[in-house]
């Protein structure tokens, strides 16, 4: 019975994915530089498969409550159903507390995706602002700002995160997003700064400045649109990165806290007995790999679409 429900649910999610895909295809037909990039992206077969997959994962995350066959946090039967390998009733098995792993995985998608999206949103905002200011102002301010970035990049991100968790202890989801976001913007700011330095010398901006446009106006109207493509690519690739990072932290027990399920802490729940409970690490891990891969494929495809390298004759 649950299997049937599950199949229906998958079909539903796939239908949503297909509908979104159709709207998307229509977007590409529009003109302008973004329309061209979109239509180029749509011709990238791998990118489109990845996109469909992501839409599917997102639909699963959004409709998790209706899709999950069981309550992710309910211990079904601690005596009869604990640590069961995959079966028809529990396709991905159960954990040591007899909770259904598939249901936890589906709800985990919500948490893992939301944390990654919000954290990346925060870090690209901060990174873009910082990089744009440094690049636009230039000179000594820029030099100081960039040395700080060098220093921040010299500390491995994982060590900073571990230090923060060591000092603050376990944190709420909101704090986790904040911490991940605020430790991830350094390289984005560097990219943006480089782009701004280049844009600053371009005719349009020079002309705008000659006409006496105000700094804020130049930044908003001329420079920020120019860095959008760089930022979009960095963000797409960054999401995959943060999903991996959050999974790692949750695996170490300092990320998303029990009983809330995230892909990382499901693996952590099974890590005490890897050999005996392989399904606890295999399925969430596959979910992570496939999702991150999809983000990376789209990131690469976007980069190619926005910045086509001409193939030079000879």
């Amino acid at each position: 019975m649950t299997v049937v429900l599950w199949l229906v649910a998958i079909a539903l999610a796939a239908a949503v994915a297909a509908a979104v895909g159709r709207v998307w295809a229509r977007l590409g037909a529009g003109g302008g530089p973004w329309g061209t990039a979109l239509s180029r992206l749509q011709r990238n077969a791998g990118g489109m498969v990845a996109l469909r997959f992501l839409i599917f994962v997102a639909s699963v995350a959004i409709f998790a409550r209706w899709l999950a066959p069981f309550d992710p946090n309910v211990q079904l039967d601690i005596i009869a159903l604990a640590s069961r390998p995959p079966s028809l009733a529990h396709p991905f098995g159960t954990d040591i507390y007899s909770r259904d792993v598939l249901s936890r995985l589906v709800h985990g998608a919500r948490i893992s995706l939301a944390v990654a999206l919000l954290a990346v949103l925060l870090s690209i905002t901060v990174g873009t602002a910082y990089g744009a200011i440094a690049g636009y102002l230039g000179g000594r301010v820029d030099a100081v700002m960039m040395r700080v970035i060098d220093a921040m990049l010299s500390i491995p991100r994982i060590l900073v995160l571990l230090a923060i968790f060591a000092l603050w202890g376990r944190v709420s989801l909101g704090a986790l997003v904040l911490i991940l976001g605020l430790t991830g913007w350094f390289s984005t700011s560097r990219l943006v700064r480089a782009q701004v330095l280049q844009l600053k010398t371009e005719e349009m901006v020079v002309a705008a400045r000659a006409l006496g446009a105000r700094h804020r106006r130049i930044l908003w109207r001329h420079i920020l649109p120019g860095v959008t493509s760089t930022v979009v690519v960095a963000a797409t690739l960054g999401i995959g990165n943060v999903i991996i990072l959050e999974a790692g932290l949750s695996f170490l027990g300092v990320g998303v806290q029990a009983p809330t399920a995230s892909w990382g802490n499901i693996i952590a729940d099974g890590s005490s007995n890897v050999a005996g409970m392989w399904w606890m690490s295999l399925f969430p891990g596959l979910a992570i790999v496939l999702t991150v891969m999809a983000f990376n494929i789209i990131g690469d495809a976007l980069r190619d679409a926005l910045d086509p390298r001409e193939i030079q004759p000879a």
Partner: protein
Amino acid sequence: MRALVARRLLQAAVIVAIAATTAFLLVQLAPGDPLGDLIENPRVPPEVRERLRARWGLDRPMHEQYALYLRNLARGDLGWSFSQGRPVGEAIAAALPNTLLLMSVALIGAFVLGVAAGVIRAGRRGSVADRALGAGTLVFYSMPDFWLAIMAMLVFAYWIPVFPTSGMTTAVVYDYLSPLGKVIDRLRHLVLPATTLVLLLAAIIARYQRAAFLDVATQDFVRTARAKGLPERAVLWRHVLRNALLPVITLLGLALPMLVGGAVFIEQVFAWPGIGRLAVAAIAARDHSLVMAIVVMGSVLVTLGSLLADLLYAVADPRLRLHAPTHA
């Protein structure tokens, strides 16, 4: 060349100082006491607590503490680790060689593998080999370090038990092995953690190397090499690769932070007694001084790595090694 070294050393010192200050500020901003569990433990008498605070200068104003911290750091005094029951420096010194062993094996393996994969992909762009390697690269690039480690352990230590699951040596038995047996035992323990790290890092390098290679492959001197009648092999492996390796040297500096991150997880999974494992243990114990020391040390390691990369680059690129045109 000497000026370059001096300038880069100064930059490195500034970077480490900023990183150390950040670490200090983090501790100051954090809730709770830097002495952590020790202070909060109700069984520790108040006078002992006060004596400890005075001993570590925690009763002084912040700027004095900062000065003290920097002075101690410069002297190499990293403080006392409460969880380890020994000086922080000692705990780190015991763990560091193990991590360095793992990291250097991984670094060498990953560069060889990553560069080869990148060159093969770029040299035969669009071929089956390019696509297969591209897919493999992408998969490993998208994989969490700890998960690959778990899967490697599951397959090669449990299902097909060819390698040991954890540690650096086989407990008890190790002491009775012959010298050669000891080496073999250590190597067997090294295989899984090192391979895991190699695959993850090689994926990053291969992605980068392919792009660098394609970049160089369109340059004029490559056409010249072909026009000379050189075989394609010589064109790619000699003329293109020598130039495409230059940006990869820079990657060496960028790879170190990732390597440190990877080491944290892989040491944790395989119970490898290195810095990463020490760091995770320090968090669990909320041992502030040990955590901060590891952060600063990580930064020093990475800064030294990128310094080394810069110098290597200067040696490898004659345009930097020798100065601009000397003859009109």
